[in-house]
């Protein structure tokens, strides 16, 4: 703890006061997260009290105004789109971090990192707009209608690429200098040092970054809404239009009432559960100290 007094044995009044206020603010932030969870549960209860939760994945289709609440096509679409985006973004993101840190010339590195940071700052709706007006018509020329699982994967991959690249870069930067020197002293080639020493040392940070990117992909709404086609179906191929859970809420919430509304809150609850599982995995993975234990 950093103290604002020279005598560090006891806290000054200023520190104690600041500590109390900061604690209060922290509790407020935590309470917001908890209250959102309770809010979702409370809003979806009118429906879940009456029908069994199993119907959310066993009903014949998603036609909430006709009493059919099957969320499973949207669940599979959400997971497939995120998985596809990760398959594209992870190799490119890690490659870009390695390039920026170990291969690029110094003058190039700074500019390159600024570019990636810029990519991270572009609002998602801009990606969606680009996907809808450029990417989807282009894919549609080969496989109509163009808006599809593939378009969603491509747009999501571009969106989460900077998250993967920047966290991987930060993780590589945090590898202690001593490991670099040891690798050099052993006479390892650059690639052997990277693959055998540096990447494994940075593994924890890189994997956490990937899981964070996955959470972002799962929750992304506007961009996916614009490019995925939004037809509720289990995709049979990359060119099938799909609807994700987040897009479902955004599409229908404005005009939903009664059970329909409650069903949308239930999809929000499912979405939150997925993100909680991802966040939990990050914590569990970070807590495992596997590399340093060896």
């Amino acid at each position, binding site marked *: 703890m950093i103290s604002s007094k020279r005598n560090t044995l006891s806290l000054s009044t*200023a520190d104690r*006061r600041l500590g109390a*206020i900061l604690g209060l603010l922290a509790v407020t932030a935590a309470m917001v997260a908890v209250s959102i969870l309770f809010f979702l549960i409370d809003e979806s209860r009118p429906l879940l009290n009456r029908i069994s939760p199993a119907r959310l994945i066993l009903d014949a*289709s998603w*036609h*909430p*105004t*006709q009493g059919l609440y099957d969320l499973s096509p949207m669940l599979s679409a959400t997971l497939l789109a995120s998985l596809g985006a990760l398959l594209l973004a992870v190799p490119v993101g890690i490659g870009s971090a390695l390039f920026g840190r170990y291969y690029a010339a110094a003058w190039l590195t700074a500019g390159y990192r600024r570019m990636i940071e810029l990519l991270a700052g572009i609002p998602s709706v801009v990606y969606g707009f680009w996907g*809808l*007006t450029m990417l*989807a*018509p282009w894919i*549609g020329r080969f496989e*109509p*209608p*163009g*808006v599809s699982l593939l378009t969603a994967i491509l747009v999501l991959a571009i969106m989460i690429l900077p998250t993967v690249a920047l966290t991987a870069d930060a993780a590589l930067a945090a590898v202690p200098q001593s490991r670099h020197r040891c690798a050099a002293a052993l006479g390892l080639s650059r690639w052997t040092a990277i693959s055998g020493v540096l990447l494994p040392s940075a593994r924890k940070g890189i994997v956490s970054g990937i899981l964070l990117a996955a959470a972002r992909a799962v929750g992304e709404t506007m961009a996916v*809404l*614009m490019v995925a*086609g*939004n*037809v*509720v179906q289990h995709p049979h191929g990359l060119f099938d*239009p799909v*609807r994700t859970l987040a897009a479902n809420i*955004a*599409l*229908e919430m*404005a*005009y*939903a*009432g009664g059970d*329909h509304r409650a069903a949308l809150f239930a999809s929000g609850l499912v979405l939150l559960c997925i993100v909680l599982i991802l966040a939990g995995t990050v914590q569990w993975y970070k807590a495992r100290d596997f590399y340093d234990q060896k």
Partner: protein
Amino acid sequence: MKNTGFSILVLATLAAIGWTFLTPDALRNGPTVEKLTLTGSSTIAPLAAEIGKRFEMLHPGARIDVQSGGSSRGIGDARTGLAHIGLASRALKADESDLHAHTIALDGIALIINQSNPVPALGRKQIVEIFTGKINNWRDVGGTDAPITVVNKAEGRSTLELFLQFFGLQGTDVKPHVIIGDNQQGIKTVAGNANAIGYVSIGSAAYEAEHGAPIKLLPLDDAEATIDNVRNGSFPLSRPLNLVTHGKAYGLAESFIEFAQSDQVHDLIEAQYFVPIYR
């Protein structure tokens, strides 16, 4: 003292929080508030809420409370007196002659295709067969040999409801390739796909087509899809948006209806892509 600035900040924050929480109470205990309850059609509810906000600004003592729940609820609540004004996005039926309908705007929807599509018009039967998947190539309706992309609206939208009702379809009958949310997204989708067909509010389609979007509005039953034709009643795929009262409106309800029918709210009506009526 070093901490003064900080203390002021904290106090100011607390004061702001207190202010936010306490003000509504102060308002509630204020001078006489007259409340007007409107219930009914989810199509009109957003528009009625906007009109209500502007009305409250002009009449400080009035509170406009809008709840949606469907046109039938609007009719029922107006009849039983649960609401001062009912909202119904349809004309009154023969057995509803005890009620008065005050039309505030018209809602029409147009079928749109890409500008490069040579098909000049579609009949009702052809439209039904395209949207139910029985026709899936433009060749079958006089166009080029290309698969049709059916663009449908998301569940719950009033445009979808009017479209289904007009063509006598169920939500499950439609076999869409793309589902869209708002009108803009529909126009962008059709503009970017040469083989797409969709439907959106006439107001937004006409506006975008005028401003260079590569889309075509299809005529229906020989009536061109224009705002003028919705207004003069010759375009069939349209409906009136009504404020419904039981008996003659009086007092605050009367002045609200007058306000909602005046040209002071035409910008609000157009912002929701409905067609205002000039009197």
